[in-house]
């Protein structure tokens, strides 16, 4: 990013859960990204999400509000009037949908999901995290999800996707609650190619990305590369 740019960070803050329950993005990771953006000269860093549980409780209990503010971010709650309809001419099932202005207008958009199990979509990673910046009836997206989620991702492409897999909710997602469902993996996956990032993260759940319909759709439609052998990739092990 360049000095003076505006940044929107979109973690998962959807649930009234503690960090240890792994339903929301790790607050320390969000704070660290805020700090790095500020160090790089960002004019403004905003953090927000359209929550599933009551927003005030989610923002507080997740630890993300306090950690982000301490790191220098503006933490915002979603305001209905700030959604704007976006045309998706190449959408196969979704031709237009309301998106949050802050995400559309930011110079840099950082998508920051937590990797976790999901009762409807099997897992939720970067592509699905986009649902936190859309308006309208999100339930509609869950019907024909594998096509519609790609349609939405055609409308807004993150500058960077950072998947938090420090703790991974392996069962009973997306809200979880039981610590027995959480595995401590201590991994962060980041990349400019949203398809590659999600494809790598599928391995956390022992899922072959080649069997995931939305990744195949997204690759076919030019959003990135699911074949990791074709991706320029670096792995850093801090314990080595």
């Amino acid at each position: 990013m360049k000095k003076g740019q505006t940044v929107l960070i979109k973690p998962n803050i959807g649930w009234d859960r503690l960090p240890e329950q792994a339903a929301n993005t790790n607050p320390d990771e969000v704070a660290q990204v805020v700090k790095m953006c500020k160090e790089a000269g960002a004019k403004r860093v905003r953090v927000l999400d359209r929550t599933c549980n009551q927003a005030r409780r989610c923002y507080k209990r997740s630890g993300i509000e306090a950690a982000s503010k301490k790191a220098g971010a503006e933490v915002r709650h979603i305001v209905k009037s700030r959604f704007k309809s976006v045309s998706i001419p190449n959408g196969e099932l979704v031709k237009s949908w309301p998106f949050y202005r802050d995400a559309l207008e930011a110079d840099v958009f950082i998508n920051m999901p937590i990797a976790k199990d999901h009762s409807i979509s099997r897992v939720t990673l970067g592509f699905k995290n986009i649902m936190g910046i859309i308006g309208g009836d999100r339930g509609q997206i869950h019907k024909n999800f594998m096509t519609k989620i790609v349609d939405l991702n055609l409308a807004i492409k993150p500058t960077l996707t950072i998947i938090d897999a420090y703790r991974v909710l392996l069962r009973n997602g997306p809200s979880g609650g039981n610590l027995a469902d959480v595995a401590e993996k201590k991994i962060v996956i980041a990349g400019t190619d949203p398809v590659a990032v999600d494809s790598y993260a599928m391995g956390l759940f022992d899922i072959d990305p080649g069997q995931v319909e939305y990744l195949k759709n997204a690759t076919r439609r030019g959003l990135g590369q699911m074949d990791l052998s074709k991706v320029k990739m670096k792995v850093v092990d801090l314990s080595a």
Partner: protein
Amino acid sequence: MSTLSRREFMAKSAGAGIAASSLMLSQKLVADDAWALVVVKNGSPAQLVRRH
């Protein structure tokens, strides 16, 4: 070589060329010798992010 800013990307994506622009941006990032994927393991949450 410089990469497209997100605003430039969004401007280029307006209209019918969204998928093509996405692909173009991905290819440009690779051409600019940027990484497409970085994985960091076995640190604290802050260390894992900072090492990117």
